[in-house]
């Protein structure tokens, strides 16, 4: 298989999955098997591109001309390779987890769910492999629209409200700011191709550079930079697998990936450093890091707390891009991977707790460690990785970010990273501590009224009551991933190194 074919196969497999899933809708077992196999095939197809990228050859393919001189084109470079691997790899795991969750939770319209899920992966891979800004923008919008039915899956008034905020902010910022920025770039340079070293140098005056950067940074609503972060907590009305894969991995990472890619390949980090145009962005990102962490502490709903934690972690990556030193950019890129594994583990745990024990509020989770030991152990590992404690993968990306801040001479952001780590501990660690060391709460009927036959968990607190095996397997796998990545961070670093040369 030539790399060009591999790109097309990677993009079209999830799309074909959509159709097959829709056709097999009446037979859930067939449908879910198709999803799983397609996930494996997609991942191996993406993986087959890795040797090329590692050897410095960036395979690309151009499909057709959308506008004069701008085609729908794909090119796989290290950053996109990494994002593509993360999205397609975690799709398999989430697929398994999703089957367990959707069945365990007795969700309706599962076919529609898996249909749009596969569609969203196509869009995420499209973003990852985009060869120019227009292609990236197209798939960015497709990703928004394909995840809207997932966010509003429950169709309750609450879901509808969440969906409005989701769509309003994401489409609003992208049309009003990002599209304008893309057009401005085209107007100024006559091209939209991602080029090493950037294309804006010498084409735009410094004051305009500030505005353009602002349009790009805030226009990428998916990066959840404050004050355009509200959509992410709103999206938590979605079923947990969606929150896990899309709102901890694919969608939000597509946002920060866009920011990284624009700063590296459109602006060029040299231009940013020389003009200092991104200084204000550092402060906005730094503010978001701290403010979101503080808000996270006030949230009692586990998914809401994790959502704010995600906002804070995404700002790390934006900060890395804005610092615009090689080390910081690589740190930001690595954080895409590291945070993905850490946060997806946490979300998986939240979903498992919801399915097994029907608990969503942190204050209800006292003593659940005895019922769900595997889940809560995985939670600890995920939390430690997000905090950045060795030997978890998350420690390396934070280390590189801090080094990058020192390189840039912005010591204040080293401080921000430190404080933020402390805040992470403060809002994440109480959950497992409470789960393992507090006494279980006395049984109350409130909130447990709708138990079905399979789940009598809270009636006997001492016995083990884990979620379905598919879910526990998935979350243990990603937790293991957090540890393994600590040891393989070097290869990730080497993969990303060429982008800042």
């Amino acid at each position, binding site marked *: 298989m030539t790399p060009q074919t591999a790109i097309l196969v990677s993009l079209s497999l999830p799309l074909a999955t959509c159709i097959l899933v829709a056709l097999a809708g009446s037979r859930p077992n067939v449908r879910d098997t198709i999803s799983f196999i397609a996930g494996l095939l997609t991942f191996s197809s993406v993986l087959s591109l890795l040797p090329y990228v590692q050897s410095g050859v960036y395979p690309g393919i151009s499909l057709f001309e959308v506008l004069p001189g701008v085609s729908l084109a794909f090119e796989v470079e290290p950053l996109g390779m990494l994002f593509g691997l993360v999205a397609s790899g975690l799709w398999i795991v989430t697929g398994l987890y999703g089957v367990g969750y959707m069945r365990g939770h007795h969700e309706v319209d599962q076919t529609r769910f898996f249909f749009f899920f596969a569609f969203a992966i196509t869009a995420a891979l499209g973003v990852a492999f985009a060869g120019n800004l227009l292609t990236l923008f197209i798939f960015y919008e*497709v990703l928004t629209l394909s995840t809207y039915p997932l966010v509003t899956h429950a169709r309750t008034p609450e879901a509808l409200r969440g969906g409005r905020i989701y769509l309003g902010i994401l489409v609003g910022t992208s*049309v*009003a700011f990002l599209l304008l920025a893309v057009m401005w770039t085209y107007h100024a340079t006559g091209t939209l191709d991602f080029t090493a070293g950037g294309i804006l140098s010498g084409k735009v005056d410094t004051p305009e550079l500030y505005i353009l950067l602002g349009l790009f940074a805030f226009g990428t609503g998916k990066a959840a930079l404050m004050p355009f972060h509200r959509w992410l907590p709103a999206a938590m009305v979605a079923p947990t697998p969606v929150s896990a894969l899309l709102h901890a991995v694919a969608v939000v990472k597509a946002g920060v990936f866009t920011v990284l890619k624009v700063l590296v390949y459109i602006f060029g980090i040299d231009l940013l450093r020389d003009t200092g145009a991104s200084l204000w962005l550092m402060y906005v990102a730094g503010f978001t890091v701290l403010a979101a962490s503080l808000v996270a502490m006030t949230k009692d709903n586990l998914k809401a707390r994790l959502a704010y934690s995600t906002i804070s972690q995404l700002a790390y990556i934006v900060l890395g891009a804005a610092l615009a030193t090689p080390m910081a950019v690589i740190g930001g890129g690595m954080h895409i991977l590291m945070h993905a594994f850490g946060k997806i583990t946490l979300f998986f745990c939240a979903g498992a707790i919801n399915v097994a024990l029907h608990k969503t509020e942190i204050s209800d989770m006292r003593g659940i460690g005895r019922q769900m030991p595997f889940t809560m152990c995985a939670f600890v590992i995920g939390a430690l990785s997000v905090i950045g404690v060795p030997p978890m993968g998350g420690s390396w990306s934070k280390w590189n970010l801090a080094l990058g801040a020192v390189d840039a001479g912005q010591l204040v952001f080293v401080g921000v990273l430190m404080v933020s780590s402390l805040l992470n501990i403060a809002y994440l660690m109480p959950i497992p501590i409470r789960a393992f060391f507090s006494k279980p709460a006395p049984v109350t009927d409130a909130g447990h009224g709708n138990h079905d036959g399979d789940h009598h968990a809270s009636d006997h607190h001492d016995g083990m009551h884990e979620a379905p095996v598919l879910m526990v397997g998935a979350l243990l796998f990603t937790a293991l991933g957090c540890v393994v990545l600590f040891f393989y961070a070097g290869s990730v670093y080497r993969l990303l190194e060429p982008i800042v040369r």
Partner: protein
Amino acid sequence: MFAEHLPILQIVVPLVSAPVCVLLRRREWSWGFALLISWFCFGMSALLLQRVLQTGTVIYYVGNWAPPWGIEYRIDAVNAFVVFLGALIGSVVLLYAPRSVAAELPGVRANLFYTSLLLCMTGLMGMAITGDVFNLFVFLEISALSSYAMIALGRDRRALTASYNYLLMGTVGATFYVIGVGLLYMVTGTLNMVDLAIRLEPVLMTRTVLAAFAFLTVGISLKLALFPLHLWLPNAYAHAPSVVTAFIAATATKVAIYVFLRFFYGIFGTHYTFEVLHLDMVLVPLGLTGVIVASLVAVYQTNIKRMLAYSSVAQVGYMMIGVGLVSVTGLTATLVHMFNHALMKGALFLAMGCIVLRVGACELEDLRGIGKRMPITMAAFVAGGLSLIGIPLTVGFISKWYLVLAALQRGWWPVAVLILLGSLIAVVYIWRVVEVAYFHEPTGKTAEATEAPLSMLVPTWMLVGATLYFGMSSTFTSGVARRGAEVLMAGLAP
């Protein structure tokens, strides 16, 4: 022989077929005949467009009388494109028509209806193809009179008042046009467009020409529904039968915009229009106000056809901004949006026609849960709506791209921002429908609804398919539009 007379056959065939259609009293026969003619016209218009793109301007003397005495048909990339558009929409709408007409117009004799539709199509294509300003007036009235008649056929009695008001305003607009043409004739003694452009040049600064300019501006703006001269449009679109709405919404205002371009870029010339009289300083603010105000009004409509009608006013605003930006890119935006908007608005109104057939209403509250009952129709509606918003991979995006680019090239920042703001308002009004259609259980009128018949879904999806296809690969549409824009910028006078 056939190829040589293509320009006149384009008009004569539907014109002569219209009375023949009256004689075919069986519903199916008259429909079949009209359909045949419309597809024949479509084929001819495609050939004509191809010829123009290959060999440049096609000139045809009607009755072999040389201009300026005879009527000249002069077809360049601009009007070939407009004729093609009119024939395309006409043939698709006719394919769609029989079920919808049978359901919505039970008491109407179908042959007369199809006659009117053919006449309307003739008028619109004639307006586009002719090179004679008075001949244009005649075609304008042919299309206008037949559309008044068709609008009045709507089931609701409000269709009658809507049609009456349209008749008043349309006639005032057309009469203003005739006055303008008369004044031009007084100073030049000619009615041929090219001849006019040449002879006007030395006398442009006279008061007569200035008066003609004013009358023509207002008259044509009335016909093309430039805000605030759009008052006839929302009611006419809302209460007309679905087929008629789809046809008129997709074509009538576009042809009027073409006439506007022909007069102010071609006959008066860009120098006089924009550098001496600064018409752009009127068009762009009015266009922008139209975009914002009409979009906001659309948000508050409860009747979806009316909502789409206000959206049309906003879309005319976009096109006129492109006209007012006075550049090749701006005109490309206008021309490409004329085509693109016809596709998407046609698709949307055809989808509404399917809903009216099955549900019997197009009030927002009657459409609860329609997404479950008529998934294919609603999918078409959503696709058309996304295009209206300007989501990439749909034609709406291509139009917005050129328009914003033109605004940036002229250095008009706020215009670019406001254009994008208009898209955001479109999100709101489209999403109101989506939420009602998909987030409620079917109740009341929708409870019993079933999917529309294939004979209506296929034409609807033809337009949706075109919306997506030309959104992904705009080489053809924007290529033709650019050719047209270059022709327009060059002016008519040699």
